[in-house]
């Protein structure tokens, strides 16, 4: 910490080729996570593992940017002092939020349940497509005041 030697990025040393390689790697990784968009991947790979895959890619990309573009690879020990505490705090914050907000569905009040979105209803809307087409064409028989 106390050393005053000037160990920032060595001036004059050209990292251009390295930066270009990193850039290509970032593009490839982005392409990699974008792959999950296609149907093949979407139908064959379980959601959980594809999410893990995407987050792993994001972490790798972030590390590449931090290490090379932000020059942390070449810096001395201070980089840990400035980066690790905030990452730790961020993790603690997220962990602290999980039991109360992340798991809030575990004991939802009936009051909220009544107004909350229901998974099966999301499907119902999707499945109502044929009925909706009839409604559009005016062929759906509407029972007036059926339930009120």
């Amino acid at each position: 910490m106390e050393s005053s030697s000037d160990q920032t990025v060595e001036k004059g040393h050209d990292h251009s080729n390295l930066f270009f390689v990193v850039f290509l790697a970032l593009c490839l990784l982005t392409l990699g996570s974008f792959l999950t968009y296609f149907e093949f991947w979407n139908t064959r790979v379980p959601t959980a593992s594809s999410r893990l895959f995407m987050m792993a890619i994001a972490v790798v990309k972030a590390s590449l940017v931090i290490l090379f573009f932000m020059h942390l690879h070449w810096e001395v020990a201070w980089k840990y002092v400035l980066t690790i505490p905030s990452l730790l705090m961020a993790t603690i914050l997220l962990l602290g939020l999980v039991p109360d907000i992340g798991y809030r569905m575990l004991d939802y009040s009936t009051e909220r349940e009544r107004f909350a979105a229901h998974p099966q209803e999301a499907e119902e809307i999707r499945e109502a497509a044929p009925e909706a087409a009839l409604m559009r064409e005016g062929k759906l028989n509407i029972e007036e005041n059926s339930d009120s």
Partner: protein
Amino acid sequence: MNASPPAETSTAEAHHHGGFQYQPGLPIPRGKVCLWLFLSTEIMFFAALIGSYIVLRFGAPVWPRQHDVHLSEPLGALNTFVLICSSVTIVFALESIRGSYPRRAKAWLLATLLLGTVFLGVKGYEYKEKFAHHLYPSQPRSLIYERPDVYYRTAVKQRLLEIDQELSSEESELLREKKELAEEDSPQALDRLGTIELALDRNAHRQQVLKDFHFKTKLIEERDGEVVERWVWADLPVSQMPAFAYNVMPPAPVHHGSDDHEEEHFAGWNVLEPWLELPMVIPGGNMWVSTYFLLTGFHAIHVLVGLIAFALVLPLRLTVARAGLVENLGLYWHFVDLVWIFLFPLLYLF
């Protein structure tokens, strides 16, 4: 950005003129220390936003799928690519400054500025798409409902009545004005008459659209011995609300991304006739619009701040003395890129 002082790396022995000697704890210029500390605070800021998003999202009973809310993965990926490009151009700008190529540095900086602008442009286009589909939070409440239930039905009925009243009052207003103008004979009056005709046509079309909903009934009642005719919106049975919701805002077909559309996807009444502004059902949609707009919005503000900083630096002569300034700018810009690297999978691909 911040006033970065000249790098002082004085050891206890070195003597400087007109300034005190210091014993720096970290072997980097003050500006860079300050910027890294600032970035730590930014990490916490986005940790709060992204953390809230994660717990709100994965704790939610339902979350809309990307295409239900007209989120386009290719556009998101394009924007990721654009930001990565801009990151690498600012890196090259710094390298050029350090190698004493001020003009080349300026070109790279300009490229960064342009790429950042492209990013904002794409973002703006995406926002426009969302707004066109009425996907936005608003006061006192947005058009998005969580369930196709009796509350939704009430909201729909209320909106239809509202439109009906608006249209009929507009029609009577237009007719009254038309009658008044018919007696005048000035060119302005003729012009105005033309506009009124167009407005009447539009009004008639809208009334027709409204009639096409097919669940409007004519009710004739007697009030105070007078026969009154009025339109009443029939109560749709709740069992038919999913179909109605489908028509307002159809969810995307389950197999997305492929180009073999078996049937043409229905656009939805709200898109075909945007003036309808009918309430729509997107389970989980409210939290989606809340988080999407706040997260991308704050990221976009950071991009904008970066662009302003680039625009301020661009006219300067980018000599080696300004390497520290551009380095700090670059660090900030990479951080903005970093945030997007996490936002892209979390918002677009999950």
